[in-house]
């Protein structure tokens, strides 16, 4: 998408405001791109394609450079996620405590596969490779809150209050 076309879309005006605020918070520090992208994602929930040319121009990088960084890191999202992001750990320690079964349960319960977002935009289900809660496996993170020793029943109880 060209920068000109991005500017014509009224939706992108709010994107531009948020991206510029993110740039203002980190520009001027050495090597700020990752921190800018974090700030954009914190503000908008994802890094929209329209943000790329704005960031590239401000940091004197090519759009390819910025795109390359956004796509390299698992954390950055290029499309909006669900209202709740649910991460189920898939790493060895959680495997030893049968996170495969928990993952199957979560997929069934939410009606969505790993990496997917439910049709109603409520949940995004993601794999994650270690939450550092390995003495309390299996671990799940919901909207930044960590949970340990998560059984399928406990998972249901954690999901129940989410709207």
């Amino acid at each position: 998408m060209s920068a000109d076309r991005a500017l014509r879309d009224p939706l992108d005006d709010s994107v531009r405001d948020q991206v510029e605020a993110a740039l203002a918070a980190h520009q001027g520090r050495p090597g700020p791109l990752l921190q800018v992208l974090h700030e954009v994602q914190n503000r908008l929930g994802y890094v929209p394609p329209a943000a790329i040319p704005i960031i590239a121009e401000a940091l004197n990088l090519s759009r390819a450079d910025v795109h390359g960084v956004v796509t390299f890191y698992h954390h950055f999202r290029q499309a909006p996620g669900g209202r709740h992001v649910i991460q189920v750990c898939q790493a060895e320690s959680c495997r030893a405590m049968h996170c495969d079964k928990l993952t199957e349960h979560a997929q069934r319960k939410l009606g969505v596969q790993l990496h997917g977002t439910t049709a109603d935009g409520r949940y995004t289900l993601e794999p994650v490779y270690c939450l550092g809660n390995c003495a309390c496996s299996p671990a799940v993170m919901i909207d930044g809150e960590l949970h340990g020793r998560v059984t399928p029943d406990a998972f249901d109880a954690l999901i129940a209050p989410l709207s």
Partner: protein
Amino acid sequence: MNIKVYVPRDAAALSLGAGRVADAIDREAQRRGLQVQLIRNGSRGLFWLEPLVEVATPEGRHAYGPVTVQDVPGLFDAGFLEGKAHPLHLGLTEEIEELKSQQRLTFARVGVIDPVSVDDYIAHGGYVGLKRALAMSPGEIVDAVTQSGLRGRGGAAFPTGIKWKTVLDQPPQQKYVTCNADEGDSGTFADRMLMEGDPLMLIEGMTIAGIAVGATQGYIYLRAEYPHAQRALNEAIAAARASGYLGSNILGSGKQFELEVRLGAGAYICGEETSMLESLEGKRGEVRVRPPLPAIKGLFGRPTIVNNVISLASVPVILAKGAEFYRDFGTGKSRGTIPLQLAGNIKHGGLIERAFGLTLRELIYDYGVGSASGRPIRAVQVGGPLGAYIPESQFDTPIDYEALSAIGALLGHGGVVVFDDTVDMAGMARYAMEFCAIESCGKCTPCRIGSTRGVELMDRVLANIDRERNLQLVEELCDTMLHGSLCGLGGMTPFPVQSALKHFPEDFRKTVQ
């Protein structure tokens, strides 16, 4: 009079309900009109007892755990504020056997103090090392670290003092101290616990490193999966700065050191030091070709110390108590203590800091008390996703760098993941290849392509398609990845695969249902 009650803010304790327990204690105290001062400490690392609530009494701190919200009114009724009896009462915290038998140097304050209070830190021996360092020459500081025998705790076990010496020897210019806090290995959480439970110790260690090599700027590269550690670090950095322990004139010495936390973005490869430097510069985390070493041309092309959290956090003790004190712990070429992390299918998982030399069996059965499922333990993986699987027959191996290396394993960052007899080792070997494929930075072919081919080969083995020939190809592929990869991700992914093949061949030759 205010009674001090400790409820951890450690992420793992919170994951088991510590936040709700703290709120409940606060509410119950108010309801009863009692003066309680809640302190949100780190975790003691005894996770089967979390949420662990402690109460300060004249004879010491009494522990209660694991406490649920429902237990709170009963604890008040029983008089837990005076350390009185209750079914959850564990006695004095310091007398809990699993804690008492440890040798905590790096984790001495974790779970004890308020992590973001400079006063509390100093009251428990903090900043003694920095004050000593300020009175020493840079060369003397580096010598002390070298003499201590400290080796990189991130996994590579390279002598820390030699790294520092290389940076010190570079001509004066902008230099950096970077802390690798991208603790991505499954089964490890020591960095996280330390950053949440005693962040000032890491800050002190980095400040000493800066003074030693003439670096004025430090960066902590923290993984995005650790939001609790991010909060603790930022609070602690602000507190240190406000007290004159960071900034342009540290304790009036004229020395300068600044510190910033930078977040990663979910890439395991960024735990590799050159990839971490790329990421700190705001780029794709692609591995750099060495030489040049980061100590010569590191962050932004400048001389840079890259050390793991635990390595840097070990430095204040070495400076405060002397290199000999630290070196007297341990065995052979593995000096000092190692914070081991016991995880996976284990009854008593947690953090055990001991001098090198404890055996795996002692760790798993004396500290861990066997599997969580109650079934026999079949294997442990030591050192994260790139570490070897070790069978029961080798559990008497002492935990030190050389002894593990001698059986084809590695200690890595000290994580030990326990598996019971329901584990499918062929499935774990497939997973090792899959993980490498997901996390490869893509720069070198053996890792980028090899890992994907490895998954495909393992799928054929599991489906019993031309099995023996494909197993032969897996062996050859492992050899190529081992010798042809640019860094440890592609170069060590063969370790779990080969060790699973060697010790558990029967799992690769099961009848397909």
